[in-house]
């Protein structure tokens, strides 16, 4: 048997579920594989664990591990599809998959590229707003949500009693990013989130703004977008400007 065949057979015994009859030595490897992946998931998905409780979380994580062999060298990257897995398992409880997404996104943001915040005076130097592009925080992750998962997550992370779970008719946006080495998150109402999605997809600032139709018909788009831009700079969601000459 070639070395590769021996290794395929060996790994096959480790991955087999339920466990075949194995020697004590092979049982050590069979057990260690699951313990290691479950440990990684417990570390990443701490608030989902708190929300689901020990029994349900461990049962779901075990089922996930058996169905999802690891394909990455980094253990930190394991379990990235757990939110989608939970969405299938709990289709009527969107807060569960949204909590899982938050757990994973906050962890990814923590290890993402660092970026300095941009001083608001940088905007004064933009000479051509038609061509300027906003560089978003490199740690930014975002998705739409329809529950109050951020409030649940915040309470769970502080060991506080979470508020009652709420589901909304209209989806909103949830952004996760990092400033000063700390991961952070914020919920965005639909218009602001639509603009962030356009910018994150690579659109220039002017084009993204043109594509935006504010739902609040009586609000002044220029004023509203200006207010968002100021907030994005202050909270480090926008970290740079590109694609334009700036006046000195």
């Amino acid at each position, binding site marked *: 048997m*070639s*070395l*590769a065949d*021996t*290794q*395929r057979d*060996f*790994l096959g015994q*480790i*991955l087999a579920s339920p466990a075949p009859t194995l*020697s*004590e*030595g*092979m049982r*050590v*490897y069979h057990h*260690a*594989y699951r313990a*290691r*992946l479950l440990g990684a998931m417990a570390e990443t998905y701490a608030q989902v664990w708190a929300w689901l409780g020990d029994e349900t979380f461990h049962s779901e994580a075990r089922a996930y591990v058996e169905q999802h*062999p*690891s*394909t*990455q*060298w*980094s*253990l*930190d990257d*394991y379990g990235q599809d757990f939110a989608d897995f939970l969405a299938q398992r709990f289709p009527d409880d969107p807060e569960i998959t949204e909590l899982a997404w938050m757990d994973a996104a906050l962890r990814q943001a*923590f*290890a*993402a*590229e*660092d970026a300095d915040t941009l001083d608001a005076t940088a905007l004064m130097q933009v000479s051509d707003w038609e061509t300027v592009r906003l560089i978003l925080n*490199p*740690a930014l992750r975002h998705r739409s949500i329809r529950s109050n998962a951020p409030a649940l997550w915040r309470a769970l992370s502080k060991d506080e009693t979470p508020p009652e779970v709420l589901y909304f008719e209209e989806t909103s946006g949830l952004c996760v990013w*990092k400033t000063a*080495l700390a991961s952070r998150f914020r919920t965005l109402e639909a218009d602001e989130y639509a603009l962030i999605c356009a910018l994150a997809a690579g659109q220039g600032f002017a084009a993204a703004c043109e594509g935006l139709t504010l739902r609040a018909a009586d609000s002044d788009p220029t004023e509203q977008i200006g207010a968002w831009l100021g907030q994005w700079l202050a909270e480090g969601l926008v970290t740079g400007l590109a694609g334009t000459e700036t006046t000195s």
Partner: protein
Amino acid sequence: MFPSVASFAGFGLGLRPPHYEAILASPPPIDFFEIISENFMIDGGRPLHVLDRVRADYPVAMHGVSMSLGSPEGPGPDYLRRLHTLMRRVDPLWVSDHLCWTGVNGRNSHDLLPLPLTEAAMATVCRHIDRVQTFLQRPLLIENPSTYVTFAEDTYTEWGFLTELCRRTGCYLLLDLNNVFVSAHNHGFSAQAYLDGLPLERVRQVHLAGHSEGETLLIDTHDAPIPDGVWALWAKVAPRLSHAAVMIERDDEIPPLPELLAELDTARRLASPVVYV
């Protein structure tokens, strides 16, 4: 050819997150830190900032767990690129990984799996060590693993395999005495024969660690204080390893820093020549 790996005699600890605050607040009296390379092969974040501050005060050794030198594929380009980036950032004492494989056919066990000790495995491991050493432009240190099974087709002893690896590739050794102790118990060989059979002059680093007991096997869990049997091995071999860097490797159930510093004092004391008065 790349330069040899210089000896560094000293006593150190693993850099682990539960100790970050204590280490930054009051740098402990040790000679070096070892990092798990993969924990820092990331794009940014606090761990890298902590590492930079630690590196400003201490030499750092890089120790990997995912190189998979014994699998047909070996380490992939993304892994090597990130390892190289970290190496340039750290300027480490050396870069080490294990005599093992971690996965095959795109599946990863995240474990240090045992190799059949055959000519085919020798050829595979040598090929990957050569490739990595050329890429990094420096020799690697290879660590002996704890194992729980052996293969009927083995034609080498583990110490014979490591000795031949050093000869063929110019690599050095990271000698884990707990792993020698565990594997000697599990497979019924003599730990002393193992140590006598190794080219100890190629050892640049020593790991001291604890283990736990299975049904009949010992299991390398790195979650317990160093047991008497491992201390006894260290006391016996220490005079022949005075050129090596020695550290306590604790990866789970990590105690407060002073407890590990006390264990390190024991390692120092056992390595000191006995003075009769």
